């Protein structure tokens, strides 16, 4: 509370007092009082008035500061009427009532939006599950009638599947609830299934694949890691250069396992590196017309954060290496025995 403004607000009261003083002075002088007596009375009056004003000012200031503190500490600030004490002053009670009304309409709005979002998320999930049926049917049709035409169709189907998966995980990552379950997972299996998901795209781009991941067990959600690897493989295909190659390797470190996926593609410029995990960031590679969405790596980062996987990118002009570090601490091995 600003003291200056408070003083300004008290101007009417002060004016009333001054007028009272003037009236009293006239009355006292008319009754033949001494100047000293009048001065004494006025001094006492003045002292009482200023004390009153400042005591009230400090009391109010304390009370309001507490309220401010309370509001600042609150995560959902609009809930302040729920925890503050009901004020005693008549006008304050009116403000309190207004705050209550504002809170109520806010809560209603939030509830409605949350519901809407939940329904939308459910619809997206349902839609994705539905679209997977025709994708599966087309995939089977192509696999049963192999030809060069079918191969190209299969590659495109893999693309469609990746995009739908992206939408699914985007819908899931936006929600706070846990959609994953952590269990013992063989990294080798996850890598192989991610490659299988992109088989025809990888074959089409003549990618050479080397794997150096042997029997590395980590605790994580295999579906999420598979999705993350799919995004990384998709990028490696999209941003490939001459004689593309993709190398998977896993290294044990002190407190975990680092799975790195490195390619020899066009790489990421140093200036873009700090921002690649931002939503919608496409950078130089996006500007040269590679159909970038700025969603893939953003989702990878989000999912990694949720799963507690470290995600790092290394790129020097040519080639990109993405490192996923899985924690493998004493706690996990202790619990698992």
């Amino acid at each position, binding site marked *: 509370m600003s003291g200056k403004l408070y003083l300004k607000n008290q101007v009417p009261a002060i004016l009333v007092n001054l007028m009272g003083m003037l009236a009293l002075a006239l009355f006292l002088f008319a009754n033949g009082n001494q100047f000293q007596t009048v001065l004494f009375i006025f001094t006492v009056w003045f002292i009482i008035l200023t004390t009153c004003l400042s005591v009230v000012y400090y009391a109010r200031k304390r009370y309001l500061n507490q309220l401010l503190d309370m509001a600042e500490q609150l995560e959902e600030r609009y809930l302040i009427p729920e925890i503050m004490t009901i004020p005693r002053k008549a006008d304050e009670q009116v403000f309190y009532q207004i705050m209550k009304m504002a809170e109520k309409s806010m809560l209603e709005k939030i509830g409605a939006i949350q519901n809407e979002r939940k329904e939308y998320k459910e619809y997206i999930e349902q839609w994705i599950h539905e679209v*997977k049926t025709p994708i599966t049917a087309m995939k089977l*049709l192509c696999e049963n009638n192999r030809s060069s035409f079918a191969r190209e169709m299969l590659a495109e189907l893999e693309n469609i599947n990746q995009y739908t998966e992206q939408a699914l995980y985007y819908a899931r990552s936006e929600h706070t609830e846990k959609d*994953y379950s952590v269990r013992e997972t063989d990294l080798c299996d996850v890598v*192989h299934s991610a490659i299988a998901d992109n088989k025809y795209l990888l074959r089409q781009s003549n990618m050479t694949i080397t794997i150096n991941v042997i029997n590395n067990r980590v605790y994580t959600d295999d579906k999420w890691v598979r999705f993350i690897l799919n995004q990384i493989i998709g990028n490696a295909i999209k941003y490939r250069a001459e004689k593309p190659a993709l190398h998977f390797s896993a290294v044990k470190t002190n407190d975990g396992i680092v799975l790195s996926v490195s390619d020899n593609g066009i790489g990421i410029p140093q200036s873009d590196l700090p921002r690649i995990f931002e939503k919608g960031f496409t950078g130089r590679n996006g500007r040269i017309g590679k159909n970038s969405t700025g969603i893939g790596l953003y989702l990878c980062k989000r999912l990694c954060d949720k799963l507690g996987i470290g995600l790092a990118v290394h790129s020097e002009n040519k080639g990109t290496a993405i490192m996923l570090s899985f924690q493998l601490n004493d706690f996990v091995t202790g619990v698992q025995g």
Partner: protein
Amino acid sequence: MKKIFIVEDDFTIQAQLKTLLSGNGYEVFAVTDFSQTIQQIKAFVPHLVILDIKLPGNNGFEICSEIRTFSDIPIVFVTSSNTDMDELNSIMLGGDAFITKPYNTAILLAKIAALLKRAYSSPQAEFFAWNGVTLHLESSVIEYNGQKAELTKNELKILYYLFKNAGKICSRNDIVDFLWDHQLYVDDNALSVNVARIRDKCNKIGLTDFVKTKHRQGYTL
């Protein structure tokens, strides 16, 4: 011949699964009336059931628990929803495998073969023979007239595919596809190198011109 029963409500997938599975040596029957699923399963007596979860009438979980009341045949759940709840449910109710759509056919076939092997422990062919040449799968050896040559993993898989399709022409693309399905990521050049090595080994055991090249088409035995 192992019998497989398919419970799937999408008719294209049903028909294509039938083609795929019968092409891989299974006798296949797909449900025709979803109100009679259990009766049809009882009548067909399959060795394995492929079960979708979202179905008209009773869902896959209900059908699964009903099957479990009279039989413990392997049940493979195939579904497009890959939530943890569904996976957990399918395992709790006695499902043996959970595969999400769109599935990789190689993985589906491998899973089916593994489940059938575990449930019925049928002695699988551990060797192939063609024109007096024997391919031993377990020991990864090719044998001709008592002479043997050891094969690498890649060479064994290539020969396995050629033996399986003996007499037919196998296109290079199909062979590479097959190798990728078995987690051997070989490219076109590497395939040529591997076939050259196989020919070398065959020559050493007195087997000349065993793997023939069909120009622009592929290889054949």
